[in-house]
């Protein structure tokens, strides 16, 4: 009886969802910001597992590499830099807790109610014509066979996920791809401009106003 109720899919999903939500609760409630940021790691790994469940292998890899490996390390780096200057643990106090509970709870109730009344599977879109896919000349040689080899319910070709992602990024979704690269460039330049130390020319006028004996102190402050 229990085995009929608990399919392997449900068990896997439940474990991943529990890991994700449990560590998300820790992220929201832990007092030290370092601990909250570290609790984000199992949350990201749980979400990566969910992407694996959804047969999105490339998303799984990117979730681990960018979120767990990049963003989380960046956040921890910033926290440690700030804690060195604060000279103590950075603590995130909470305020307006009733307002937060009310707003988040209300949103949760609304979303769950919306979720309850919709016949999801009935809305499934019809399959597109194969001709609406890539033109035969656009596909690289050898790709077309695998590409059109997928049946209506063949969701298990995880190894082709990366290939298809790249193909779609460079054909149908070229504009988001290029826009993303521009945004990345702008963000990189902006982050460097914001975070760098003030250059010598900007410091110089302030140093001129100082009397001569204070220049050593001003230099010590700048480092």
């Amino acid at each position, binding site marked *: 009886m229990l085995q009929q109720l608990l399919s392997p899919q449900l068990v896997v999903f439940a474990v991943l969802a529990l890991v994700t*939500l449990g560590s998300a609760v820790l*992220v929201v409630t832990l007092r030290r910001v370092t601990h909250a940021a570290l609790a984000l790691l199992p949350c990201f790994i749980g979400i990566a597992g969910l992407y694996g469940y959804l047969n999105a292998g490339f998303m799984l890899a990117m979730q681990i590499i960018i979120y767990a490996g990049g963003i989380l390390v960046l956040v921890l780096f910033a926290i440690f830099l700030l804690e060195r200057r604060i000279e103590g643990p950075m603590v995130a106090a909470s305020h307006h*807790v009733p307002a937060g509970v009310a707003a988040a709870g209300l949103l949760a109730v609304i979303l769950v109610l919306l979720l309850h009344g919709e016949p999801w599977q009935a809305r499934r879109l019809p399959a597109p014509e*194969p001709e609406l896919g890539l033109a035969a000349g656009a596909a690289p040689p050898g790709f077309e066979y695998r590409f059109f080899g997928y049946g*209506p319910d063949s969701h298990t070709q995880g190894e082709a996920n990366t290939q298809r992602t790249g193909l779609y990024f460079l054909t149908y979704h070229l504009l988001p791809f290029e826009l993303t690269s521009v945004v990345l460039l702008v963000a990189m330049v902006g*982050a460097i401009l914001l975070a760098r130390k003030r250059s010598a020319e900007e410091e110089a006028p302030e140093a001129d106003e100082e009397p001569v004996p204070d220049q050593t102190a001003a230099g010590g402050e700048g480092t």
Partner: protein
Amino acid sequence: MSWLQVDARHFTLLAALLFCLGLYAVIVRRNSVAILLGIELMLNAANINLVAFQRYLGPSVNLVMDGQIFALVVITLAACEAAVGLAIILNVYRVLRTTTADEVSLLKW
């Protein structure tokens, strides 16, 4: 329509709860870095929805990848947002000596 069969509703429910937790963090937390962590949770919730909708509700022939493509774009934007946001927080601390969001009120009239 039983909940014992995993489909898009399960993922949407999970994403909704994750989004609400992120919203709670954004409202309640006073530290700017903790608020950024809440925003990351909300972005992840949106990504789960995008990938799950593509898998379960998209065209049944597995040819179209729009959900995953836009989830990847969102991940990239989240990385940009984290980099710029943390740079701003470091800069604000350098000027105002605080990381608490409500104490940054220079533009308040």
